[in-house]
């Protein structure tokens, strides 16, 4: 699948898929990378080293700083794939230097799929292995 690069990079890993949007501030614990939002479909799971797939971000703009903090604490996802990256996630991914791609039909990616991302300066490619 082809998409748009938000932040470039070439990485692969196991997909963790959320059909719901993710709010990073108050949604993911910055020290452990565990999803803590009550009732969220990923609640209790750890995003560390995953290819995190979700439609778009939601909630407070402080979420950008949380993405940055996850990376600093070594518990960030390896990459982010969105349907549409809004400014909170875009800002966070760019500041944290986490490869991030949007414009992808994320319904084709299943939880646990091995996914490869090749994100150039502008265009990106997502391959399900």
């Amino acid at each position, binding site marked *: 699948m082809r998409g748009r690069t*938000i932040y470039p990079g070439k990485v692969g890993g196991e997909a963790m898929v959320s059909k719901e949007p993710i709010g990073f501030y108050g949604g993911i614990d910055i020290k452990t990378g565990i999803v803590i939002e009550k009732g969220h479909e990923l609640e209790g799971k750890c995003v560390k080293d995953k290819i995190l797939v979700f439609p778009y971000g939601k909630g407070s*703009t*402080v979420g*950008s*700083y*949380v993405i940055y903090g996850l990376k600093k604490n070594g518990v960030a996802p390896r990459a982010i794939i969105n349907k549409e990256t809004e*400014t909170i996630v*875009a800002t966070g991914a760019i*500041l944290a230097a986490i490869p991030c791609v949007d414009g992808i039909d994320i319904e084709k990616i299943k939880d646990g799929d091995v996914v490869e991302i090749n994100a150039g300066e502008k265009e990106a490619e997502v391959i399900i292995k």
Partner: protein
Amino acid sequence: MHLTKEQEKMLNGEYGSIVSRMMRLLVRLGDVYGAEKMIPVASVQVAGVSYKSIGDPGLEFLQDVASEARVKVLTFLNPAGMDLENWKELGIDEKFAEKQLAIIEAFKKMGIVISATCTPYLAGNLPRYRQHIAWSESSAVSFANSVIGARTNREGGPSALAAAITGYTPYYGLHLDENRQPNVVVEVKAELKNSTDFAAMGYFVGREVKKGIPYYRGIRDADVDDLKELGAAMAASGAVALYHVEGITPEANEVETEGIEKIEFGEEELGEIYEKLNTGDEPDIVIFGCPHASLNEIIKIARLVEGRKARKPFWICTSRAVKEVAERMELDKKIEEAGGKLVADTCMVVSPIENMFSTTGVNSAKAAHYLPGFCKQKVVFRSMEDLLR
């Protein structure tokens, strides 16, 4: 997007990784909003200062930026979560204060002026007509665009910081002539007696026009304090970042009003807003200065309370710069003798007043809008004169 050689160098990391990331952020946001290039900015105002709102993630990020980068242009700071000097006597928790001061230290290291105010234009950061700037605070954005005629989008904390560090902002939105045209005319029929009436009108119009650009007709006169309240209210009940006032704001005679929608603001609408914003009966405290009080407002308050004793405490929030001048004029003494207090660097919405009071009296529609949610307050919304009566 077209980038100059200098901007390419920034992007490619020749000035370090922080500058590179900041430039990448701006380029990416510019792509999303369809900007064709970057433009230099003359002034920046950064929001996201209170520890209550940005927490440890924000603090760590700012410390990392400060370890490597400095700002390129005059950059001011939004209010903090406490008075940066008198926090102890105002009962702020030590741990909170420590974190807040660490945030301030990081900004200072970057070369940002610790103005801690939502009214930079009253405290030493005054852009000129048609100058491109990158400001964050919604009421300051509205004032700069509308009253001064400078040009800014409403920036988030990180994007404003990125503009300060690179000296550029993507060229889109309110930076362009064609996006500064009004889309609704407001016919003002009500008699506006004070800045609180202006605030009430702003609250009504913001709610009606949402993200639009209103053009006011029928306002005979308005001073800087009236316009400050008007813009703040529209940015709180709606997301208005620019408005025009016939005969008063600088771009009003350059824009086109033919054939656009019209709404009316009369005595009935004015009454409705007062009714809506008044949720309490008797205030436990009265707080002025949302947005931060001007020197003229402090002079007015000092005159109104001189030689009297207030039944309830009252605070006036302002910038440190204005407070210093007020102190030189001994206005603080008159206010303190009457039972009031001048508070600098912070604002009622970001301070923990819910632990001390349950009903707050305000003359600002922006404050009346945010206090019930952020600080669990009932609100008495009246003019300065009525609240001090």
